C-alpha cells in the first residue's frame, strides 16, 4: 500500500523527466509529438490505475485511520519527514486529481492546445499532477508547503505558453498572488512548527496540548489562512482567478478549477481546523462572512456577465461561479461542525467534477466557434446549440443544472450540508450570525440558478432556421465522449448516492474536530 502511494506521488515526476528525453526505439510512434502525448496518457493512466487500486485497497471500515503511511526522515535539520498517508478526507481528492489529470491528458492527445512543443506541455502537466497529489498525500507541514509551491511554475508556464489572449498578464497575476499568499502561509506554518516543536500534521492534530497558546494560534491561523484563502480563492483575494481561467488553455482551466483550488480548502480542513482550533474559532465568523460575500459577489458577477450586451466571456463566467461555489465550501468549513465540514468536502469534489466538465465543454465550444464570448455566440436570439449540436448542448445544459445544485446531482448535497451546518454552528460560535449567513447563502443559490438558466437559454436555445448560412457545428467527438463521460457519470452517482462519499469523509472529520479522539 505505501509503495502504491509513494508511486502515485513520485511516478508523475519520473514521467516528467522521461517526457523530456527522446523516446526509446519501439515507442517512437508516428511523430515525436504524438509519442510524447501518448507518454502523457500512459503515465497519467498508470497513476489513475494506482489511485483506483489504492482506493479499493483502502480499509473502508476505518476511514479515519491514516493508511498507506510512509514515514522517513528527510531533512533532520528542519525536522522535515517524508510522511505520507491517506484517510477518508484525502482519498477522494487524490482519486479526483488522478482522474482529472488523466482525462486532461487524454483530451490533449486528440486536441493539443495551440502553442510550443507538446514535450514541455506533457512534462509540465505531470509535474503539476505530482505537486497536487503530493499536497493531498503529505502529512508534514513543510512538505505540504513544498508541494503547494510545486504547482506554481508548471501552471505559470501552462497559462503563459499555451493560453489565449492576455495570457502573460494572467499568468503573472496567478503566480505572484499565489506566491505572496503561500510565503505568508510559510510564516504561519513555521510559527506552528517552532512553537509546537514538530511539523508532523498527525502529531499536531492528535496532541491535545501542543503548546500553542491562543495568541499564537490566532496569528498562525491568520497567516496560514491568507495563503490558503488566496488559493481557494476567497473573496476579496480572488481577483487572479477570473483572469487565469479566461487565459488558460482548456486543460489548464480544468486542472485549475478541478484540482488546484481544492488545495486551499483541503489545507483549511487538514491543517487549521485540527491544529489551531482556538485560532480558527476566532476567525470563523469572519471567514463565514467573507464566504457569503463571495457567494453573492460571484453570482452577481455572473449575472452581469450573462446579460445580453455585456460581452461576457463564458470561461470568465464559470470562473466567477467558482468563486461562489468555493464560498459554500468555506462557509461549511467555518461552521466547525461535522455537518458543515462534510458538506464542504462534498462540495469540493462536486465542484471539481462539475466545473471540470463545464470548462471542457466551453473549451470545446470555443474550438468550434472560435469564441467563448457570450454575445458573439448568442447574437440577438441565442446560439441554438440544441439545434446545431444537440449532444453538446445537452451536456452543457446538464453541467449548468448540476452546477446550480439540482437535487439528484452532485452539486446539491455539498451546498445543502454547508447550509445545514450554518443553521447549527459549533457551540462557541454565534448562532444568529450564522443564521444570517445561511439566509444570505441560500439567496445566493437562487442567483446561481438564475444566471445558469440564462446561460442555458442563450447558448443552447434559439432559432435554428437562420443557421443555414452558417456552417453546422460538429457534435461531440468520440474522444470528447471518452473524456467527459466519467465526469457525467460520477456527477450523477454522487448525486444519487452521496453516502458513498460521506461515509468516507464523516468518520475522519469527526475525529479531526474532536482533536484526534474518535
Amino acid at each position, binding site marked *: 500500500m505505501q509503495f502504491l502511494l509513494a508511486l502515485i506521488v513520485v511516478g508523475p515526476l519520473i514521467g516528467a523527466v522521461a517526457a523530456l528525453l527522446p523516446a526509446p526505439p519501439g515507442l517512437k510512434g508516428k511523430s515525436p509529438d504524438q509519442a510524447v502525448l501518448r507518454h502523457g496518457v500512459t503515465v497519467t493512466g498508470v497513476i489513475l490505475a494506482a489511485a483506483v487500486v489504492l482506493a479499493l485497497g483502502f480499509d473502508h471500515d476505518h476511514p479515519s485511520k491514516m493508511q498507506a503511511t510512509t514515514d522517513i526522515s*528527510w*531533512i*533532520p*535539520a*528542519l525536522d*522535515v519527514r517524508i510522511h505520507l498517508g491517506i484517510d477518508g478526507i484525502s482519498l477522494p481528492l487524490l482519486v479526483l486529481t488522478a482522474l482529472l489529470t488523466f482525462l486532461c491528458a487524454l483530451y490533449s492527445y486528440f486536441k493539443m492546445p495551440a502553442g*510550443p512543443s507538446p514535450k*514541455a506541455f506533457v512534462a509540465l502537466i505531470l*509535474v503539476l499532477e505530482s*505537486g497536487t497529489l503530493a499536497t493531498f498525500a503529505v502529512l508534514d507541514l*513543510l512538505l505540504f*508547503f*513544498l508541494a503547494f*509551491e*510545486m504547482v*506554481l*511554475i508548471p501552471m*505559470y*508556464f501552462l497559462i*503563459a*505558453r499555451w493560453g489565449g489572449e492576455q495570457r502573460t498578464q494572467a499568468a*503573472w497575476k496567478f*503566480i*505572484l498572488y499565489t*506566491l*505572496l499568499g503561500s*510565503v*505568508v502561509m*510559510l*510564516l504561519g506554518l*513555521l*510559527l506552528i512548527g*517552532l512553537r509546537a516543536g514538530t511539523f508532523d500534521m498527525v502529531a499536531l492534530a492528535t496532541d491535545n496540548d501542543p503548546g500553542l497558546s491562543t495568541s499564537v494560534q490566532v*496569528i498562525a491561523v491568520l497567516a496560514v489562512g491568507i495563503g490558503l484563502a488566496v488559493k481557494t480563492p476567497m473573496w476579496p483575494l480572488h481577483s487572479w482567478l477570473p483572469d487565469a481561467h479566461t487565459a488558460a488553455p482548456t486543460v489548464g482551466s480544468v486542472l485549475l478549477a478541478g484540482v488546484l483550488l481544492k488545495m486551499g480548502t483541503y489545507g483549511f480542513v487538514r491543517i487549521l481546523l485540527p491544529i489551531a482550533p482556538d485560532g480558527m474559532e476566532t476567525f470563523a465568523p469572519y471567514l463565514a462572512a467573507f464566504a457569503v460575500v463571495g457567494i453573492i459577489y460571484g453570482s452577481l458577477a455572473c449575472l452581469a456577465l450573462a446579460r445580453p450586451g455585456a460581452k461576457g466571456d463564458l470561461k470568465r463566467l464559470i470562473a466567477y461561479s467558482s468563486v461562489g461555489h468555493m464560498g459554500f465550501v468555506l462557509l461549511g468549513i467555518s461552521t466547525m461542525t461535522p455537518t458543515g465540514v462534510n458538506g464542504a468536502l462534498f462540495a469540493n469534489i462536486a465542484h471539481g467534477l462539475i466545473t471540470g466538465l463545464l470548462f471542457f465543454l466551453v473549451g470545446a465550444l470555443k474550438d468550434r466557434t472560435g469564441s467563448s464570448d457570450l454575445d458573439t455566440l448568442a447574437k440577438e436570439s441565442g446560439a441554438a446549440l440544441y439545434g446545431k449540436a444537440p449532444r453538446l448542448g445537452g451536456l452543457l445544459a446538464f453541467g449548468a443544472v448540476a452546477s446550480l445544485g439540482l437535487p439528484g446531482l452532485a452539486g446539491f448535497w455539498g451546498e445543502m450540508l454547508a447550509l445545514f451546518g450554518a443553521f447549527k454552528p459549533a457551540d462557541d460560535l454565534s448562532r444568529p450570525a450564522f443564521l444570517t449567513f445561511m439566509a444570505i447563502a441560500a439567496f445566493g443559490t437562487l442567483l446561481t440558478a438564475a444566471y445558469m438558466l440564462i446561460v442555458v437559454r442563450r447558448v443552447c436555445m434559439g432559432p435554428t432556421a437562420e443557421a443555414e448560412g452558417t456552417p453546422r457545428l460538429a457534435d461531440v467527438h468520440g474522444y470528447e465522449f471518452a473524456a467527459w463521460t466519467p465526469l457525467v457519470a460520477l456527477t450523477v452517482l454522487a448525486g444519487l448516492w452521496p453516502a458513498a462519499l460521506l461515509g468516507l469523509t464523516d468518520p475522519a472529520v469527526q475525529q479531526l474536530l474532536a482533536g484526534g479522539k474518535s
Partner: protein
Amino acid sequence: MTVAASTVEAGAAHSGAVESSASLIQSVDWVAVAPPTIVAVVGLAVLVTDLFLSDRNKHLLGWISLAGLTAAGLFLLPLTDSDSDARSTFCLSGPRATACSYTVDEFTLVIQLLVIGGALLTALLSMTSLKDARNTDKELPEGEFWFLLLSSAAGAALLPASRDLATLVVALEVASLPAFALVGLRRGDKRSSEAALKFFLSSVTATAVTLLGVSFVYAATGTMHLTELGEKLGNVDGQLDTLARTGVVLTLVGFAFKVAAVPFHFWVPDTYVGAPLPVAAYLSVVGKAVGFTGLILVTVVAFPEYADVWGPALAALAALTMTAGNVAALRQQATRAYSAVRLLAWSSVGQAGYLLVPIAAAGYADQRSDVLEATGATVAYALMYAAVNLGAFAVAALVGRTQALNRVSDYRGLYARSPLSALVLAFFLLCLAGLPPGIIGLFAKVTVFSAAVDAGLGWLAVVMAANVVIALYYYLQWTALLFRAPQGEPVKHRVPAPLTVAIAVTAVLGVALSGAPQLVLQFAEQGVR
C-alpha cells in the same frame, strides 16, 4: 599582499612571544594554517613563474593555480577530524593562554571550504576568459591575474580562522586589495578602471571606519582577541560605555561593505559590469563570504554583550538591503547593455539581505544554542547561494562568449541553442528564487525564515516574504525568456572544457543538495562550532 598576511601572522606570533617569558620561540601548528598558506605560496610561485614563461606557455599558470587551490582544499581534510577539539595556534602564552589569533573549528573549515571551492570555480571560469581575451585588444595579463586571484583567496581563507581584530582586519584587506586590482585589470578598458576606482574608494573609506571602530574597542577594553573581548565588554567602565558602543557599530561598517549591505551597495553593479565576468562571480560569492564571516565573528564571538545594539541594526540593514537590491533588480531593463550581469549584481545585493537575517536573529537569541543555530542558517544559505550563483555566472560567461553585450534579452531562446545550459540556468535561477524544482533554494529560505520567526522578528520575516515575491518576478521573467522561441537561426558553439566542468560541477551540486538538503542544512541544526 601575501607578504602582509605572513607579516601579521608573524606579528601575532611575535607579540605572543614577547609576552611569554618562558619560551621565546612559539610552535606553529603548520597543518592548521596550511590551507591559506598554500594558496598564498602558490600565488607567489605563479608570479615568479610568470617571468620565466614564454607567451605560448602562459596557460600553464592557470593549471598551476588550479592545482594549488585543489591542494589547499585537500589540506582541509586532515583538519576535519571531528573527535578533536578546535585547533588553535598563535596563542598568547602565560596566564592569557586561552586567547589565540588563529583557530580552526567547524565554522572555519566550512567557510574555508566555501572560499577555496569558490576560488576554484572562479579559476575554471577564468581559464576560458583569459584564453578568449588573449587575442583581443582587451588582453588580461595572466601572471598578475592568477597572482591577484590567489592572494585574494588566501586572505579570504585566512579570515574565518582569525580570532583577533588585527588579524581580522588584515585578512579583510588581503582579500580586498587584490580584488581592486582584479577589477581594473583589463588593459585599455575605461569602464574597468572606473569600476576599480569606485570600488577602491568606497572600500577604503569603509575600512578606515572599521579601523576607527577597532581602535575605540581596543581603547575601551585593552584587548584585541575576540574571546577576551566577549568577556571584557560585559564589564566596561561606565564612562567608556559610549566609546565601546560606538566602536562596536563602527567596526561592523567594513564588513557590511563587503557584504554589500545598504548603504554600502552602490559600488556593486558598476563594479560587476566593469570587472571581467569571473571576477564578478568571485566578488559575488567569496567577497560576500568574507563580509558575513567577519560579521558573524565580530558580532557573535566578540560583541555578544552589545547584542541590543547590533541586533536591531543588522535587522534594519537586512530589511533595507534586500528591498533595495530586489527593487533595483526589478527595474533592470532586459535590453540594456550588460543587463544580465547587472541583474545578477542587484540580485546578489538582495541575497545579501537574506544572509544578514539570521545574524540579526542571533542578536535576539537568549541561549547559546539559538545563536549557533542562527549563524548556522547563514552559513547554510551561503553554501547554497555560492553553488547556484557561481553556476548562474558560469552560464552567463558561456552566453557572454557569443553575445558580448550580455543583455538579458540575449538569453531569449537559449533552450533552442543549447538545451542543457538553458535548463541548468533555469534551475539555478529558480534556486535563487526559492521555488521548486530549486528545492535547496526553497529550504535554505525556509531556514532563514525559521531563524527570524524563532527570534520573534516577525516584521523582518514579513519584509523578506514580500521580497521573495519581488525577486521571483525578475528571476522567473528571465527563466521564461530562456524557453521562448529564438530570434533568428540558432548557432551552435563549442563549449570550452573548463567552462563545461564549472557548469557541470555547480549543477551537480545544486541537484544533489536538492535531493539531500541535509548536507548543508545540518549547519543550521546544530550550529557551526
